[in-house]
């Protein structure tokens, strides 16, 4: 955000309002309980958890992108490295806000340390993301100090990379370890989460940088343009991989007649679709991919922004749909008191949790852009 712009206070005001609204929701949730969500004992994980998954994975994607210059020495990307680390931190903080409001009792969280259960994917997920947050913060601190290449700084980069590879696999295995839910069970969710992390992280990276450069109105240097081309290329290939993966998943799910999958399929198009293709796949994967492969369009800033924005919305939608479809039917005796199919639309409080998570991330972005010199590069 251009600091001198008269819109800046308006922007801060809007974020402030969003955060106030979010804090109101948080207060109500803490005092009244989670019945304020449109969740229940069948569909127990809803929008706040979806937002958490989405933001955490996006943060992971940003961390992986940042590893290119910071771990793998792709010097060309160094001009965006510090910002990527910062974005990864703030996005993850947003994710933590979302899950913090999703958990029934965050005051018991210290038992994660006091009484760890090492066989729990949730524990590992929490542990790795906590480590990731600390390591990223440390790394950012080193970068901010201009320390790009010390052993410590490089070590931190390596650790954050490893954590960023493992973290989405852990999120995936939270689902992948549920024998009771065949549609999730197995390693597919882990691989899917890793791919989705790269995709949404790259999309955010691209969108954010294009937005910043547009807001700042500064002339985009050729160096930067070249960086955007590279990111766009990564983006395009990731899109293609995710699309292929998604199509394979759809084909397999369509081919099987295992009842769980039949049920899943029946409800897997919460947002509509054409044939077996879901709306979010069409709008969130296929359309952006088309935009990104057509010569003449793919290089335009607007089309890149549109494509990345579509992907950012689409990936959230895809996470939500997988989350909801797998929980939409009651298990065992819960079918006695609940309908065959739980329909879901987020309550006001769930929207506010999402708003708060995103507003916190946006506030941090804004502050970072203003005070933390995110454009810094190593002094060679």
């Amino acid at each position: 955000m251009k600091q001198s712009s008269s819109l800046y206070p308006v922007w801060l005001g809007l974020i402030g309002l969003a955060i106030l609204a979010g804090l109101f929701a948080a207060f109500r949730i803490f005092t009244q309980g989670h019945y304020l969500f449109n969740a229940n004992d069948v569909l127990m994980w809803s929008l706040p958890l979806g937002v958490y998954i989405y933001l955490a994975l996006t943060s992971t994607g940003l961390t992986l992108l940042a590893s290119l210059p910071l771990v793998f020495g792709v010097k060309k990307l160094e001009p965006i490295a510090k910002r990527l680390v910062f974005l990864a931190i703030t996005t993850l903080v947003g994710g933590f806000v979302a899950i913090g409001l999703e958990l029934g009792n965050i005051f018991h969280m210290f038992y994660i340390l006091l009484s760890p259960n090492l066989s729990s994917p949730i524990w590992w997920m929490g542990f790795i993301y906590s480590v990731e947050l600390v390591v990223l913060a440390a790394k950012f601190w080193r970068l901010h100090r201009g320390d790009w290449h010390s052993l410590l700084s490089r070590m931190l980069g390596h650790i954050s990379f490893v954590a960023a590879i493992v973290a989405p696999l852990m999120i995936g295995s939270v689902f992948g370890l549920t024998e009771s839910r065949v549609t999730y069970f197995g390693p597919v969710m882990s691989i899917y989460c890793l791919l989705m992390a790269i995709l949404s992280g790259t999309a955010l990276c691209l969108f954010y940088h294009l937005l910043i450069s547009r807001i700042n109105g500064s002339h985009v240097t050729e160096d930067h343009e070249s960086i955007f081309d590279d990111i766009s290329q990564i983006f395009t290939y990731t899109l293609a991989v995710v699309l292929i993966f998604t199509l394979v998943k759809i084909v397999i799910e369509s081919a099987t007649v295992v009842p769980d999958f039949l049920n899943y399929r029946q409800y897997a198009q919460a947002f509509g679709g054409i044939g077996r293709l879901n709306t979010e796949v069409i709008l969130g994967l296929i359309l952006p991919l088309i935009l990104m492969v057509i010569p003449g369009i793919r290089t335009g800033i607007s089309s890149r922004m549109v494509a990345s924005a579509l992907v950012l919305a689409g990936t959230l939608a895809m996470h939500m749909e997988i989350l909801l479809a797998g929980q939409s039917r009651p298990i065992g005796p819960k079918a006695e008191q609940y309908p065959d199919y739980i329909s879901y639309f987020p309550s006001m409080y769930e929207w506010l949790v999402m708003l708060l998570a995103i507003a916190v991330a946006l506030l941090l972005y804004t502050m970072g852009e203003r005070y933390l010199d995110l454009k810094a590069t190593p002094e060679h």
Partner: protein
Amino acid sequence: MPRYAMVIDLQSCVGCGSCSISCRSENNVPDGIYWSNKITETSGTFPNVRYHYIPTLCNHCDNAPCVRGCPTGAMHKLDNGITMHDPKKCIGCKYCEFNCPYGVIYFNWRKPHPFWQQKTQLLQGGTFTPVELTEKAGGKTIPYYNPEREDTLAGIRPKGVVEKCTFCDHRINKGLLPRCVEACPADARIFGDISDPDSEVSKLLGKFRPFRLREQLGTDPHIFYIRDFNPAHYQPTKGGV
């Protein structure tokens, strides 16, 4: 150390639900939460129709997915095989509930027993408010509060944590049968130590071919079902073309 298990004789079961209702008062369970529940099915088309009923409760699995997945060990196994929950350690992530193949875990979405927190009178001066009644009766949150539940677990679990059947561990500790077993008018629930070959459960499991729910998942559930809800006689037949 005993390994507790339950045999449910479906032929004896009459589907009356005494187990489930009596569980409510024994464990101060709020409305909408079913530690003891059932799976019913109406099969066939008129006039060849039957209704079937399978009582359900926590299976107290040996390989309990809820225990494996709990990040803080709030859900844990006791030496006697009971799958136990400690609400003090529960962060309310609901992963156990998500993970349970048997749909027996519930989350406290709100402060429990909202009915009993009302402060309105139906007939002015002539009836109690729910809060007054509980106070006057000497209960706690609910007028029929069972303080003996506190022996091993929060008497009423607070909002934000999960809860489920504990095999009435507080009763077992005192040498009493689980409440659902005591309350079953049909003696359809047989409780005991499966590690003792002379226990009634061991004898029954040696006599019948039991089945368990979703055995193929490898959870090793310890609720065993024997015989059929409807063991109807029928005229021998070879059918026809």
